[in-house]
C-alpha cells in the first residue's frame, strides 16, 4: 500500500506539510529517540552490574546488527511511500545461500548472500514498477516466494556452514580485536545510506517521491530508477543480514526471519519516519532499532535478576505494546506541531 492509495492521516498535501516535515526533520524525533536511548542505557548501567560489560555490549550489537541492517533498508523503502515485507524471508534465503557457499570462503559467500538478496529486491522492483502491483502485495508475495524458495533449496533443514573456512569470522570475531566485524559492516552501510539520502540527488528524489509521486514525475525526476534503487538496496541489506545470520550462528536457517519485517518497520516508525513517505532519517532509524533491541536486553537482565519472570510469549506482547506506545507518542508530537485545521474534517 503506497502513499498514493492511502491518504495520509494528516490530510491533504499542501503548504503546511512542508512545515511539518521541516519541524520533524530537524532534531525533533531523532532527538526524542536519542533521549529515550540514553535514558534506557543509563537505567541499565545503574541497575545491572554487567550491563556495561564488554561481553554484553559486543553480543548485543552483534545480535542486533541484522535488525539494524534490515531497518536501514526498510527506511529507504518507506521514505518512498512503499513497504518491503519480504526482508525476513529474503534474509533466511540468503543465509542458506551463504551457508552453501561458505566452503569457498567469506570472499565468495558474502557477495553471494548479498546478491541473492539483491535478486529478490530486483523481483520486487520489477513487480512493483512494471506490473504496477502495490508494494504491500508485491513484497508479500516475495515473502512467500523467498520462504518457499529457501525451504526448497535447503530441504527444510538448517544448513551447517563450513567451519574450516574463514566464513564464521564475520559473525564471531572482532576486527583488530575490538569491534565485531558485523558492526563495522553495519556502520559502513549506515554511513553509505546516510550519504545517499542526505547528500545525493538520488536521496532527494527518494524523499520527493514519498512527498508526492505525481509531482516528482512532473518535475522530471527519475522516479522509477530511484524506487528500483530503494527495493534493490533493501534486498541487499536483507541479504547481508542473512550472511550475518549464517555466519554468527554457524548455519543457514530457512525457518528464521519470521516477523523481522515487523521489527524493521517498528524500528523505522520509532525513528520517526512517516509511513506515508517523504520524511525519514537513517540515523533515527538506527537509534530506533537499537532502542527496540535494548528493551529486550533489559528485559533479559530483569529476568536474570529474578525480579520478574516473563516467558518468551510475553516478549511478543511487550513488543506490540511498545509499538503502541511509540505510535501514541508520535501522534502527540505530530499533533502538537500541526495547526489544528490539518486533519480531514471529522464528522
Amino acid at each position: 500500500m503506497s502513499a498514493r492509495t492511502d491518504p495520509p492521516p494528516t490530510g491533504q498535501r499542501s503548504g503546511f506539510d512542508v512545515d511539518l516535515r521541516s519541524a520533524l526533520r530537524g532534531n525533533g524525533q531523532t532527538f526524542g529517540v536519542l533521549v529515550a536511548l540514553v535514558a534506557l542505557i543509563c537505567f541499565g548501567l545503574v541497575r545491572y552490574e554487567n550491563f556495561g560489560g564488554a561481553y554484553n555490549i559486543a553480543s548485543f550489537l552483534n545480535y542486533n546488527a541484522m535488525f539494524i541492517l534490515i531497518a536501514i533498508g526498510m527506511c529507504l523503502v518507506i521514505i518512498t511511500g512503499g513497504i518491503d515485507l519480504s526482508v525476513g524471508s529474503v534474509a533466511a534465503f540468503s543465509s542458506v545461500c551463504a551457508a552453501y557457499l561458505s566452503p569457498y570462503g567469506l570472499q565468495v559467500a558474502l557477495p553471494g548472500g548479498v546478491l541473492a538478496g539483491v535478486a529478490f529486491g530486483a523481483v520486487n522492483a520489477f513487480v512493483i514498477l512494471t506490473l504496477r502491483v502495490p508494494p504491500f502485495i508485491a513484497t508479500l508475495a516475495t515473502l512467500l516466494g523467498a520462504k518457499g524458495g529457501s525451504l526448497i533449496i535447503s530441504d527444510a533443514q538448517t544448513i551447517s556452514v563450513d567451519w574450516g573456512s574463514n566464513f564464521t569470522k564475520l559473525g564471531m570475531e572482532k576486527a583488530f580485536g575490538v569491534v565485531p566485524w558485523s558492526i563495522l559492516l553495519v556502520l559502513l552501510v549506515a554511513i553509505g545510506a546516510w550519504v545517499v539520502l542526505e547528500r545525493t540527488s538520488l536521496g532527494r528524489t527518494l524523499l520527493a517521491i514519498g512527498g508526492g509521486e505525481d509531482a516528482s514525475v512532473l518535475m522530471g525526476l527519475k522516479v522509477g530508477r530511484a524506487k528500483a534503487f530503494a527495493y534493490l538496496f533493501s534486498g541487499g541489506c536483507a541479504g547481508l543480514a542473512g550472511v550475518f545470520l549464517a555466519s554468527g550462528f554457524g548455519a543457514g536457517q530457512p525457518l528464521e526471519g519470521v516477523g523481522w519485517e515487523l521489527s524493521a518497520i517498528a524500528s523505522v516508525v520509532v525513528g520517526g519516519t512517516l509511513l506515508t513517505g517523504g520524511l525519514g532519517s537513517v540515523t533515527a532509524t538506527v537509534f530506533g532499532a537499537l532502542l527496540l533491541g535494548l528493551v529486550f536486553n533489559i528485559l533479559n537482565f530483569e529476568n536474570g535478576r529474578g525480579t520478574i519472570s516473563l516467558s518468551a510469549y510475553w516478549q511478543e506482547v511487550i513488543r506490540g505494546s511498545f509499538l503502541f506506545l511509540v505510535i501514541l507518542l508520535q501522534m502527540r508530537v505530530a499533533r502538537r506541531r500541526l495547526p489544528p485545521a490539518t486533519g480531514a474534517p471529522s464528522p
Partner: protein
Amino acid sequence: MNSASADANHDQGKRSSSRRPSGRLAWRSTLARHGTLIALAALLLVNVLFTPNFLHLQTLFVNISQVATIAIVAIGMTLVIATGGIDLSVGAVMALAGALAPLIFGSELGVAYPLLGLVAAFVLPLAVALACGAFNGVMISVLRVQPIIATLILFISGRGIAQVLTNGNLQTFSNPGFSYLGTGRVLGLPFQGWLALLIAVLAFWVVNRTIHGRHLLAVGGNERAAALSGVPVRRVKIGVYMVCAFLAGIAGLVVVAINSASDAARNGNLMELDAIAAAVVGGALLQGGRAPVFGALLGAVIIQLVKYTLLANGIEDEVALVAKALIIVAAVALQQGRRE
C-alpha cells in the same frame, strides 16, 4: 518507467474520484472477474484429471470444512479493504478467541454449569474479538494511524497474549456441544460451510441493500467527499474493523472446534495472507471502494483448491507457498491492468 507510474496514479486517481467506473475500467473489472472464474474452472479441471479420488464426497467435505474459515475471514477482510484499509491482526484474533473458548468451558464454573459454560465460550471470545476490532478501528479512525501499522500492534501482541493465557500449551478437550461448530453436519454438509454462506449472504445484503453498505463504499471511494456529504466516517471505520475482528473470532472458534484442540501458536497462523489473497483474487481493490463479498468467497475457494491440489498430488508445502505468491501477484497485476 516514469510514464508507467504516472499512468498508474492517474488510474488510481480516477478510481477514487468517481464512483462509477468508466467503460475501460468496467471492461477491466469484468476481465478480472472472469479471470477468477476461469482460474476456478481450470483448477477444477486439473483436479478432476490428475488428483486421485477428487470426485469423492469425502473430498468435498474436507475442502468445505477447510475453506469455511478462510472464507469467513476473507469476507471481513473484503469489507475492511473496501474502506481502503487492511487488517493484519485477523490471525492473531483467531488465536486469541480460539484460546479463550476452551479456557471458559473447561473452567470450574463451565464444568459445573455446562450450558452456561458453552454459551459463555461463544459469547466471551467473540466479545474479546469485538474489542480487538474496536481497538484497531479507534487507532485508525480517531488517532489516524495507518491501517497496516495500527493492526500490526495486535498482529504482534495478540498471539502473544493467547500464548500467555494458555502458557503456550496445546489445550485438548472433548465437548460435543462446542465441537458441533466444526464437525456438525446440516443437510449432509459441514455446518461451518453453511455458516460461511450465511455470513456471505448477510454481508452481501448489508453492502448492497442498506445505508451502511453505501456508507462503507463511500468511505472507500473517497473518504473526504464522504465526510463532507455527511457520512459518519469514524463510525463506519470502527464498525468495519469490529465486524472483521468478529468474523475472525468466529473463524478462530471454528478451527478450535474442528480440531477439538486449541493451539495458540498455530491457530490462524498466516491467515491474514490467505484472507488478503482471497479478497484480492475475488476482485477487491486495495484502494477501496469495492466490496465483492461473493468474490471473496470465490477467492477463498480458489486459495483452498490450490492448496489442496498441491497437497493431494504430493507436492511439498514449500512449492505451495511459491504458487500462492504467484497467484497473488497475477491477480493484482491483472486487476491493475497493464499499460496499454
